[in-house]
């Protein structure tokens, strides 16, 4: 009995020491891997070498803090990252921290450790945070994951300058120069969806249609969402009321899409995230809405096309200028035993100098959640053609958007993941359904999403 109580007391003591150690700044812990092991699942970057830079940044932190890292790079392809998150949430074991794309923070909110303090610190350091990141990551007033640079991407127009000049008489480089100088607000204001439509028609006639996917993958959903938003379309309110049937913006956006689709290839309804890249690299498409992966691959496989590539801002609609923004987060599982270490590492990765290294390593693909960091040299200098990436970041009056914003989040997540937007367009255009029947189909579908 006495023996038992002694052993129990020692245990308690050890426990107390453990807690104390965890509370101490990690820097002071001595010994090999005294901080334990931190298991991380990062998003697997498509740019060769980008993973290595992230590993290096993480290892610098780990060495200083004597934490052993176990890093897995998990591809988002084929929903692998999502599957991993579901698997770990179900099994309540796995990594300590994991990358989450867009709605997955909302899906896993109950299993994610709140990170309000960390985000507040970062906002204090770098100013206002990306509004879409806030919409996706802050749930019921609590940040459940930290918006991150790694993997976050925009989908602005990625155009062929030569084809635009030749067939549409538009000098896109002059309209959107590769820097803050020489921008003419009147010209930029004139770049709206109507101008876009005229260009789409001319280039399609010339045999170089716009490569705008309308399938169920994120490239399609992201750009269509931006278009709907710029027509002020609201399908579901913030509170979750379904207003699609009577919403004038939705009607206007669909009417516009009906006109635009006449100038798009007929198979866009099946395009996946790689189809538009391929159409562009093959020299077929004159415009795609994509992060710079298409340009980077063209640089290797079709350099003559890469040299003629330029980024421009999205066209403007009645409600403003919006661009599809696909956000990544780093979240910490609530069942992790390394929460403090994970938070500290996320803080380290989010520092400006590290964000800059990540942006450089990803050839400008990754986009930090802070507008104050849009001045990195990569976007100014990367090429050829030099400066094409300046307009990859949101400039002028462009605002980020995610399809479904500002609808109630769990409904919006399903609208996004089940491709409600592009389904509506396909019904209207491909199946020639009447507008009202499309809208009531959507209303019915959305009612299904209300399921709690």
């Amino acid at each position, binding site marked *: 009995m006495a023996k038992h109580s002694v052993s129990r007391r020692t245990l308690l003591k050890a426990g107390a020491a453990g807690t104390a150690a965890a509370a101490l700044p990690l820097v002071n812990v001595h010994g090999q891997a005294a901080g334990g092991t931190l298991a991380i699942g990062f998003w697997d970057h498509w740019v060769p070498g980008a993973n290595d830079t992230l590993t290096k940044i993480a290892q610098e932190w780990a060495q200083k803090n004597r934490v052993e890292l176990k890093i897995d790079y998990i591809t988002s*392809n084929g929903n692998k990252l999502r599957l991993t998150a579901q698997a770990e949430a179900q099994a309540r074991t796995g990594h300590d921290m994991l990358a989450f794309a867009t709605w997955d923070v909302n899906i896993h909110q109950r299993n994610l450790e709140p990170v309000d303090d960390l985000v507040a610190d970062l906002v204090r350091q770098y100013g206002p945070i990306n509004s879409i990141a806030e919409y996706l990551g802050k749930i019921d007033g609590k940040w459940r994951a930290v918006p991150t640079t790694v993997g976050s991407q925009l989908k602005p127009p990625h155009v062929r300058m030569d084809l635009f000049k030749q067939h549409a008489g538009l000098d896109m480089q002059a309209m959107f120069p590769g820097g803050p100088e020489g921008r003419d607000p009147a010209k930029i204001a004139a770049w709206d969806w109507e101008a876009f439509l005229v260009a789409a028609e001319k280039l399609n006639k010339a045999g170089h249609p716009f490569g705008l996917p309308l399938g169920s993958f994120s*490239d399609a959903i992201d750009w269509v969402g931006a278009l709907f938003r710029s027509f002020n379309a609201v399908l579901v309110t913030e509170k979750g009321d379904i207003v699609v049937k009577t919403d004038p913006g939705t009607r206007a956006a669909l009417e516009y899409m009906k006109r635009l689709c006449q100038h798009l290839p007929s198979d866009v309804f099946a395009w996946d995230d790689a189809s538009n890249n391929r159409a562009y690299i093959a020299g077929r498409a004159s415009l795609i809405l994509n992060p710079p992966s298409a340009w980077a691959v063209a640089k290797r496989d*079709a350099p003559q096309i890469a040299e003629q590539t330029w980024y421009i801002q999205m066209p403007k609609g009645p409600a403003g200028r919006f661009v599809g923004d696909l956000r990544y987060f780093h979240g910490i599982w609530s069942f992790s035993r390394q929460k403090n270490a994970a938070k500290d590492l996320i803080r380290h990765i989010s520092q400006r100098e590290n964000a800059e290294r990540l942006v450089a390593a990803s050839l400008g693909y990754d986009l930090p959640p802070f507008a104050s960091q849009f001045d990195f040299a990569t976007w100014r200098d990367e090429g050829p053609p030099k400066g094409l990436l300046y307009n990859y970041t949101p400039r002028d009056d462009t605002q980020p958007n995610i399809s479904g914003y500002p609808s109630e989040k769990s409904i919006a997540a399903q609208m996004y993941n089940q491709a409600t937007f592009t389904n509506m367009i396909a019904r209207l255009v491909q199946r020639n359904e009447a507008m009202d029947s499309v809208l009531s189909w959507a209303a019915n579908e959305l009612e299904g999403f209300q399921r709690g």
Partner: protein
Amino acid sequence: MNTTVAAAVSEPVSRAAPSRWRPSLSRSRKWALWGAYAGLILFAVFFLIPPYYMLVTSLKTSQQIAAIEGNPWALPWPPTVSNWLALFTDTQFPIFFRNSVIATICTVAISMAISILAAFSLSRMRFWGSATLATGVFLCYLIPETLLFIPLFQVVGFLGLMDSMWVMVLVFPTLSVPFCTWIMIGYFQSIPKELDEAALIDGASRLQLLLKIFIPVAMPGIIAATIFAFTVSWAGFLYPLAYIFSFDQMPLTVGIASTMIKADVFQWHMIMSAALLAALPPLVVYAFLMDYYIAGLTAGATKG
């Protein structure tokens, strides 16, 4: 040979013009043969289009793949062999291959052990519920992996096998054991009961009966079941996709799909050469064991 004898015998009885019977038979035979070749070529083309195209693509550079002009079916000249070499030097392909081999060998061994023991028991001995079990095993085929992979998250996590290649050894038998057991029951039942009765009279134990009589006699069936288990675990996709995320634990199928496709960038030339190599081991296995496979399936699954 048999047929000619039969034809010779049947000659006087069967046809009105016996003198023309033999040449017309061989002529129609010849036509049938030509027809068969024509049909086979047609289907072989259909079946071999994807592997051929994989070969062509695997020999192209990424520039050649990106070019939209030119005949995509033509073998590129000069062919790029570096894709194949790069597979072994620049990618984790050898690791995927090793994992697939280990997982498959273990899965096959476990599946066969489980199904031979069970089939022996179910085909020759009785216990309470054995008949139910025999049909129940068969009905397990009705539970698809797409239903099981989510609830299995818990089991896998509980056993600490999440993100380990051994999870394949745990779950792949669920795909192979029902069918293997079924084949083996069929095969064991086809062994005459007199044989084991005689052995038992000679004082052989049940174990000796299994090892000395059943297994040797049922070898074709065992080979057929082994090949089936091999095919299933070599091609396993959904389970490793769901449970394995470290590159060094992945099998070929998932490894190829998750390291050679990144976001919207596809390395087609690598994917294709890796895929062809991944198809090689089963091809070799089938080439050598095909005759046993057919014999085993004939006896095991088709008896009725």
